[in-house]
Structures are given as C-alpha cells and as structure tokens.
C-alpha cells in the first residue's frame, strides 16, 4: 500500500511538471528493490497504466490486482527459483506517454514481460512498442480487436468488443425487450467507437432500431446538446460505451433534462467513481463486464476476499483481470522454463484451460481468449449481477 501510494504521488508529480519522458516512478513488490536489478535472483515485470487522470481508477485497480497476484506467487516461492518484481509506470491516460512508458520499461527497467493497458487506445500505442522490441505483452482489459492484431507478442485475457457489443444488443433486445435505442459514443476513443459499431451491427441484425447516433469527446463536460437531441427521438435506452467519468455526467444530464430511460454500457463503466459522479441518476442502468463480484466461483471468492483484506475495498472487474493477466504470465514463465521473452511469448500462446478468476482461459490463434460476459445492474450505488451471456 505504501509503495502504491508512492507510485501514485510520483505519478502526480510527473503530471504536475509535465515531464516529457517518464521519470522514474517505479516501485517494487519486494522491499527495497533497486533498478540495477540483480537479474539472477528476480524476474522484473513491467506495468504501464493510467495511475492519474480521468481514467485513474482503471490503472489503480488493475495495478492492485497485478500486485496481489505477484505477492501471492512470491509467497509460494516465486517462479523458477526467482522472485517476481513489479515496476509500474504512469502514462496519465495519454497514448504518447504509454509508448514512452513501454520503451522505458524495456530500456531502463529491463523487464522480461509487460502488462497493460486498460484503455484500448493506450494498449495499441504500448503494444506497438512491445511488438517491435519483441517483449511479450498481456493487456488485462483492452477489448478492441485491433489490440492483439498489432502482432504475435501482444495478448489479452478478456473478451473482445464484437462479442461485448453483441452481449449488450442481445440483452437489450431479448432481455429488456427494447426496440428503439440511441447510441452516444466517445469519438476520441478506439474502444468506444469499436463497441458502438459492434452493438449497432448486432442490434440492427435483431431488427432493432437505432433511432439516434450522437457523439462526444473524452474530457467533455457538457452533454446537454446530445441528450436533448436524443430526447426527441423516443429512444427507450441510450447505449453509452464510454468511460465512467463521462458516463456519470451523462446520466446526471439525462436526469436533469427529464429523460427517464436506462443507460446501457460496457466494461468501461466499471469504477466506484461512476456512482459518485452519477449519483441517483445512474441507478437502473446496465453494463456488461468481465466479472461479477457477488456471483463467483470458489477461486474468484478467494480472490475477492484477499483483495478486500489487502486494499480495504472490493475489486472491480479491472482488478480481477489485472490479477488474472499476472497469473497467466506467471504460469507461462513457469512453463517456459527460462526467463527469455521469446520463450515466454510461446508459453503464453500455448495457455490452455487456465483456471482464472473470471473464467477458463485458452488462447486462440489470434491471442484472444474465449470467455462469457456478465451484465450488471446498478442499484443503490452498487453494481449487481443481472445475467450472464455466453459466446
């Protein structure tokens, strides 16, 4: 926790002074680690994440999940007789910084593998670097299909947006019995654009109507024009595949303009800040996610318990997938038998029936796992399991 705070504070300092490169903000899970690491006794794993900024919660929760997995692996004696050490760099939610961070992890911190990012735009930026340098990377939660298309060194442990879009379209059409839906997408965000397209294609196929398509840009604060335009179309729900800060504001704007229809969204909603910003207005809305903490397998229950003990709050889906990505990586390093990027890459590619906290993971030929999704309903400032939809 102390080291996490240190990362966070140095991240803020970085942001504050607008440093171009990533200054050293690395911390270690093992006490008193040095950058001039003794590679004979430890394996260094890099994580680049938005520890600050409007998606700070994504980075922080993922980092906690990863840290927990590595602490647990180290408690069992580490891998191949070596301890695991995590180096986290803050990219401030900026794609140029994400590429810088991965370069720095590889050049300065000499990591053997990279974990990150949550946001697809950032995973694309970081993934291109990892691919060029031939260092394996696992994105815990980037759902845009393009992310793993970057190359054979980039993997993920979550489902992809064509599936997630279909899940919400199925849910809206078959479960909520809706036929008229408006779409409000973040046009500066690869994830949001991809998910909106996937949703629209599936919903139209089910002979539903998309009655309005509106746009906003990340970090916008005024949504009244879009909501007003949607209000006149008779939409029964709005699909907002964005991130939690803006979604919270959009929900409040809709309530203010007297629009009493549910919002639907994806895993980008998954943060307690959604409830802080959205308040009562976000109640009654639904989003698809990787993981429902209230309905889980034994392994997931153990994870939720130890996460909650360690950090004093329950994990979101992001924490769970961070944990899962780290576990898949540790398992692959063990199977590779040596700490060498190409061997680790091959081992990750051969991951089969790995029992993760959010489900079984088998990497397909495109380095994507096949997994089912859950739909959560927001009630009283909490996300609760509503239904599960299989591929």
């Amino acid at each position, binding site marked *: 926790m102390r080291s996490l705070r240190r990362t966070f504070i140095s991240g*803020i*300092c970085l*942001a*504050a*002074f*607008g440093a171009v490169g990533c200054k050293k903000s690395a911390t270690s899970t093992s006490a008193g680690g040095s950058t001039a690491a003794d590679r004979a006794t430890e394996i260094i794993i890099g994580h680049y994440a938005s520890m*600050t*900024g*409007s998606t*700070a919660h994504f980075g922080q929760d993922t980092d906690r999940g990863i840290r927990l997995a590595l602490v647990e692996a180290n408690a069992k004696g580490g891998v191949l007789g070596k301890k695991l050490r995590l180096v986290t760099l803050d990219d*401030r939610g900026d794609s140029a910084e994400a590429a810088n961070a991965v370069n720095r992890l590889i050049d300065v911190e000499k990591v053997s593998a990279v974990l990150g990012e949550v946001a697809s735009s950032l995973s694309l930026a970081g993934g291109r670097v990892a691919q060029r340098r031939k260092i394996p990377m696992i994105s815990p939660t980037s759902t845009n299909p393009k992310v793993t298309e970057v190359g054979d060194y980039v993997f993920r442990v979550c489902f992809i947006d064509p599936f997630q879009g279909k899940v919400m379209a199925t849910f809206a059409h078959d479960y909520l019995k809706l036929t008229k839906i408006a779409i409000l997408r973040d*046009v500066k965000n690869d994830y949001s654009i991809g998910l909106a397209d996937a949703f629209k294609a599936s919903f139209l196929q089910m002979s539903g109507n998309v009655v309005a398509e*509106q*746009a*906003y*840009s990340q*970090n*916008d*604060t*005024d949504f*009244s*024009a*879009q909501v*007003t*335009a949607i*209000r*006149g179309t008779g939409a029964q729900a709005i699909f907002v595949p964005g991130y939690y*800060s803006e979604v*919270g*504001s959009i929900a*409040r*704007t809709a309530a*203010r*303009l*007297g629009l009493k229809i549910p919002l639907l969204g994806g895993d980008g909603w998954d943060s307690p*800040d959604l409830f*802080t*910003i959205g*308040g009562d207005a976000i109640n009654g809305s639904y989003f698809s996610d990787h993981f429902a903490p209230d309905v889980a397998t034994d392994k997931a229950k153990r994870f939720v318990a130890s996460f909650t003990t360690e950090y004093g709050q329950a994990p979101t889906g992001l924490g769970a997938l961070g944990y899962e990505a780290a576990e898949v990586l540790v398992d692959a390093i063990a199977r590779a038998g040596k700490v060498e990027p190409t061997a680790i890459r091959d081992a990750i590619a051969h991951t089969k029936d790995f029992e993760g906290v959010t489900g079984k993971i088998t990497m397909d030929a495109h380095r994507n796992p096949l997994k089912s999704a859950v739909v959560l309903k927001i009630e009283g400032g909490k996300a609760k399991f509503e239904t599960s939809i299989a591929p």
Partner: protein
Amino acid sequence: MTQLLQQIINGLSLGSIYALIALGYTMVYGILKLINFAHGEVFMVGAYTGYYSAGALGISAYEAQHRDFPVYLGLIVLVTAMATAALLGVLIELLAYRPVRNAPRLTPLITAIGVSLFLQNAGMLLFSPNPQRYPAILSEVRFEFFGVIVTNIKLTIFVVALCLMLGLHLFVQKTWTGRAMRALSFNIDAAKLMGIDTDNVIRSTFAVGSALAAAGGILFGLDQITINPLMGVLTGLKAFVAAVLGGIGSIPGAVVGGLLIGLAEQLTAGYLSAEYRDAITFVILILILLLKPEGLLGVVRVEKV
C-alpha cells in the same frame, strides 16, 4: 420546436458563463493591451475554491441526508471563491505582469502563457488531476414548460450572471474607480498625468475580472457536474474568442460574444455533430478576424505613431 428551445436555453446558460469569463479578458485587454492567458486558470481556481469551501461548510452532511444546502451558505461559498480569485488575480498582476509592464508587448504575453501553465500544473498537484463531482450547492428543481425543461440551476446561472454584469456596468460607469478604468483604457499616460494612481486601478481591474471568473467557475461546476484542473484551458480559450467576437476591450461586447459562442456551440452539437462543438468557436474566431477584426461592438482606434 421544443428541442430547439431546449438547445437555446442550454446554449444561453453556457454562454452566460463564457460571458462572465470574457469580461475579465476584455477589461484587462482594454487597459493594458494584454491578453491575460492565465484568466482561464483563475476561473479554475475559483471553481475549486467553491468546491473546497462548500466542503468546509459541511455540504456532504446535507447531501447525505438529502437536505438542501442553505442559500446563505451558498452565498458564502460564492463570496469566498470570488474573494480568493480576486486575490489571486492581484497577485498574478503584481508578481508576473507588473515587472514586465513596460517591456515589448510579446514579453507579457509569453509571461501570461507561463503563468497559465504553472497554475494548470499546480492545480493538478494540489487538487489531483482526476475529475471531481461538484457538490450540490443548489439542489436541483426542475420546471417544465410545454416540454422545455428549465432547472433552477440554469435560472440561477442567468440571474447571477445578469446581476454581476449589471453590477459591473454600474461600477464602471458610476464609480470613481470605474471612471479611472475608462480613463486608463483611453490613454494610460494621460491618466497618469491627471494624477490617477494607475497601479491601483490596474490592480482593481484584475481583482474585479478575477472575481467574475470565479463566479463563472462555480456556475460552471453546478452546470457541468464535474470539474478538473484543466477545465480552464478550453473554456478560457472559448471565453477569449467570445471577447474577440464582441470586440475586445468592450464590456457589452464580451456579454454578447459569450452568449453567441454558447449558442453556436450548443446548436452545432445538437444539430450538426458534437465533434464540431469546439471547432465552431475557432471557425468563428477566424471569420471575425477576417471580416470584422474590431469585433461586433468594438470601436476602431487610430493607432498613434
């Protein structure tokens, strides 16, 4: 029709906030011929002062119990933020602009950009870079007229903005300091020769402009739900464009410009696409500079050689 009216109301309320900020740009420019780029950050600091002073007055307890925050406490929040921002404005003038006042015009402009960047980053350091939900200083009440919804927040924005603008008008036209400001804007050297304490008048100008920006900051927070340390960048630029559109240096011009920019932005977002909402402001800037560089209500001044 309902939709158009709704968009116009939304646009006017956003425009009133721009107008409040634009007044600060235009007043400073009128007197010093300086574009005070740090003004957007004064607006941001005003919003955060409101955020923290509402917190200090125990707003979370009211929110938790779904009780209304008392109006007199809301006024205290407003006055605190305005006073803090006025102080900040005076301080910026004293530390950053006064030492370079007689330097070539480019020097203070670059200094202003420096102050702006400094305050943005200080804001991220002090207030955290993450967006914060603005406290419910006003609890929301909605009124509906033929399908058009007006909240008490929008009404408050109009009323507060209108009162402050009228107050400013009276201040500039009727008080001694106001008359001195107009004298300075006409000819600063002549004003000095007439025995006006120009430093003092410039200080008051910064104080008044900054206080108005702080009021704008609080109204912005109420209207837009979240605030962040970089909120002053784009909003400040748009308010600056509003000042140029109305005719920089002209107080009624700033008000007209602010309202027009707010309307243009909202109608573009509503009827064209929200992707162009920021672009439209700068298209307007380019057009006005090409077609009527002195602005809608500006006066052409003869440059003395």
